[in-house]
């Protein structure tokens, strides 16, 4: 047996001092290095962007559902983008769909979801005082904020914000003269994305490092809650995929501003030949989707992790297939990098290559299905507690199944060539990635609100919010499948001009009404959120009778999370309804030696090892310095 001497710097004395530091408003609420405050900053910024992104979708749904309507009443808000006859400007319509996509994918479901819950839960659930580097964590938020400021300003430009679709394919995005939105709006989009990538990188590096180095004693990787596994893998995906978008974006900047031809070749615009030769717009698509596809899982995995935790807690049952869940997520992580070309089946891709990407894409159905079956089997015969968080988690499983099944259809290149860029695709990804991630995010807020603000959210309002949202997303996105199969293309301003698409007007109007009602239902949540923050019922220490570590902190944890020593961990986080136990949950901090009645035979053997866990001297700083004595 190899013996390794581990040098540990124990700084436990000084880390308790944090609470005594004098904090000003600025250090506490603005330039905070406390992961909990940074998480709340991400959450509030994410909510702000979600409202803007949602409002944008309502405006373009008005156009799609009621093409003849007089939108003059929107003039005070949109100004010259509504013309004299009350029509939405077609260029601005394109800007709206572009910004809706950009905002929702990056600002809401990446920064708002990962930024909030990775920051909030990683230190609390692994038993750490804070992130490895609080300063970098703060920088991560402020880069995100800066990115948001640039993007927000671009909304008010004379020529409008970027409007080439959220994927910003060249040559449309590379040539400022191609459309108004390809002017300054596009430049600002790219600048904002560069800041966003920096933010995401700073955050991701911190999350991964914290999970590796700062777990409390006893918290082995196989005792981590599934939320942490999800955040861990999400951060790894981000670290590996965002830099490629960074490279792609920089090359695009050069094409736009410095006259290079990386993505441009042989183009006539306005009857004039451009000098650019030798570039390839397909190259951009490859680089973009190398990020773009993993991005889907950056958005989705945290939501799946949150759901695992909430479903197990509220079914009062251990999660079914803990290891299978981890292996599935690892499988999804690896596969997410080798399927990008399924977005490019109609780009002239070699059909043989297409069939390889199709094969790899369909393999993703396996880990995804494993996860779904595990959720269902966890729910199966559980003592389900229908909290709002639980409802949204079950809702996530539902939309994940509905949206995932159409993914199997779309993954086939033969079918995809027919359905590419139709509303079928829009329906698919809004269910499987958009709604599922959104449900996970909202579920997380309901579940961890007591830990964030020390108060409970109102559950009646939560139920109303859930049913409006759940029914709403199906009413919005289910009919889109039919419209898509009928051949309606995405991103078209109006369908009334085409005989082929003159049908389904009523269905489009129906979708629009449902979308707007669903948007308004979200304000129930916003109200509930802010009302409960100040007036909500005071939360007990462990409101959901949960096992994980965050509920062992004080109700309003200070900087440093635990006032005394960080508790040690002896068991996995899913000991719910264990036969023989007094309560229907056993927190991770309870040693097996105290639960002799409920231990399984192999757990009795672990009691011996608990002494070893207690002996570990925790290195709370995550430092490891080798001191050479010679």
């Amino acid at each position: 047996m190899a013996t390794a001497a581990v040098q540990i710097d124990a700084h436990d004395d000084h880390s308790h001092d944090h609470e005594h530091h004098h904090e000003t408003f600025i250090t506490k609420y603005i330039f905070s290095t406390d992961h909990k405050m940074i998480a709340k900053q991400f959450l509030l910024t994410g909510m702000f962007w979600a409202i803007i992104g949602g409002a944008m979708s309502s405006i373009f749904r008005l156009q799609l559902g009621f093409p003849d309507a007089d939108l003059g009443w929107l003039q005070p808000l949109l100004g010259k983008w509504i013309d004299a006859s009350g029509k939405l400007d077609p260029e601005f319509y394109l800007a709206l769909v572009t910004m809706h996509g950009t905002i929702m994918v990056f600002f809401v479901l990446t920064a708002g979801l990962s930024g909030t819950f990775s920051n909030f839960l990683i230190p609390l659930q692994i038993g750490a005082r804070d992130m490895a580097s609080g300063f970098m964590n703060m920088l991560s938020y402020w880069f995100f904020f800066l990115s948001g400021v640039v993007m927000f300003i671009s909304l008010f430009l004379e020529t409008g914000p970027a409007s080439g679709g959220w994927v910003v394919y060249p040559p449309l995005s590379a040539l400022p003269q191609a459309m108004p939105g390809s002017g300054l709006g596009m430049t600002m989009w790219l600048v904002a994305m560069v800041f966003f990538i920096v933010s995401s990188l700073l955050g991701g590096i911190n999350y991964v490092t914290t999970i590796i180095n700062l777990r409390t004693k006893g918290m082995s990787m196989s005792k981590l809650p599934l939320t942490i596994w999800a955040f861990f893998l999400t951060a790894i995906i981000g670290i590996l995929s965002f830099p490629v978008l960074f490279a792609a974006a920089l090359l695009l900047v050069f094409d736009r501003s410095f006259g290079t031809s990386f993505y441009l070749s042989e183009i006539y615009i306005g009857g004039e030949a451009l000098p650019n030769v030798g570039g390839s717009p397909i190259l951009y698509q490859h680089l973009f989707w190398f990020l773009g596809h993993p991005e889907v899982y950056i958005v989705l995995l945290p939501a799946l992790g949150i759901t695992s935790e909430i479903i197990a807690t509220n079914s009062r049952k251990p999660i079914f297939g803990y290891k299978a869940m981890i292996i599935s997520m690892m499988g999804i992580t690896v596969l997410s990098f080798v399927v990008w070309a399924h977005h490019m089946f109609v780009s002239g891709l070699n059909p043989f290559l297409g069939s390889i990407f199709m094969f790899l894409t369909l393999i993703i159905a396996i880990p995804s299905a494993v996860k779904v079956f595990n959720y269902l089997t966890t729910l199966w015969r559980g003592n389900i507690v229908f909290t709002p968080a639980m409802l949204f988690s079950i809702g996530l499983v539902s939309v994940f199944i509905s949206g995932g099944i159409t993914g199997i259809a779309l993954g086939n290149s033969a079918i995809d060539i027919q359905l590419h860029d139709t509303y079928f695709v829009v329906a698919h990804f809004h269910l499987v990635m958009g709604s599922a991630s959104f449900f996970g995010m909202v579920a997380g807020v309901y579940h961890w609100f007591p830990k964030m603000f020390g108060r409970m959210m109102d559950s009646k309002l939560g139920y109303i919010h859930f049913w409006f949202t759940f029914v709403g997303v199906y009413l919005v996105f289910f009919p889109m499948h039919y419209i898509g199969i009928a051949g309606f293309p995405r991103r078209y301003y109006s369908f009334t001009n085409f005989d082929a698409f003159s049908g389904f007007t009523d269905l489009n109007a129906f979708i629009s009404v449902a979308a707007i009602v669903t948007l308004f239902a979200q304000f129930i949540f916003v109200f509930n959120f802010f009302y409960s923050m100040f007036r909500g019922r005071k939360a007990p220490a462990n409101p959901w009778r949960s096992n994980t570590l965050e509920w062992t902190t004080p109700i309003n944890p200070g900087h440093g999370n635990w006032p005394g020593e960080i508790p040690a961990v002896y068991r996995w986080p899913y000991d719910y309804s264990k036969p023989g136990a007094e309560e229907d949950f056993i927190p991770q901090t309870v040693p097996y030696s105290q639960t002799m009645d409920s231990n399984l035979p192999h757990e009795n053997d672990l009691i011996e090892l608990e002494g070893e866990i207690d002996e570990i001297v925790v290195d709370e700083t995550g430092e490891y310095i080798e001191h050479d004595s010679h």
Partner: protein
Amino acid sequence: MATTATVGNEKSLWRGGMAPFKASYGKLMMWFFLVSDAFTFSGLLITYAFLRWSAPAYNGDPADFVFSTEYWPIPEKVYEAFPGFHGVELPLVFVGLMTFILIMSSVTMVLAVEAGHRMDKKNVVKWMLWTIIGGICFLSCQAWEWSHFITGTDTATVADVVVNGRWQENYEIFGAGLTFNQYGPPAFAALFFFITGFHGFHVFSGVVINIIIFFNAANGMYEKRGHYEMIEKTGLYWHFVDLVWVFVFTFFYLI
């Protein structure tokens, strides 16, 4: 306050409460950043490969090679200049020197890290200084190479291009810009500027960081701290930049 815990076996390093890779969080962060940065460079080098192999290649005898915007040039014919040897063909000699300088600066960085392990402040400072000098030399060489590349050779390449928004037929191209160049297709120079520039920016950042670390070390900051880990972290970055250059060198100058 340092305490020592003796742990049974390697696996139990993962049981929490300690750094399983026996590396501080700062060092891990540097590693993850480098992995990420490696993907940025991979994206750029894949772009290079994609554009280069979609451009026509020169199929004739290398002895008869002349520059043309119609096909990708032979690298040895482009990078053959050396300061003070005007008119002498010295293919890849100058870039070889640059590469040697960069690799030597990596060696001095290793020596600085090693001195840090021994808590030998004097030698840390000395080797850091040599590393900084190596970095600055590399950047200066790159500046000369760029300016030569931009100025061009004595004979022009004739092609139809757009200059200041107007088509010019049989225009005499000297040197290189981002839109067109005398050596080959537009992408040839654009990629050269972009990728060696991106790498050069990394070297520049490295030199700036090295200077900060040099002063910190000289002022005894790390001695007071009790360890020279900061040198190791910067060292990782510096070696990475060196490694990337090997790939850039292979793609641009050898293939």
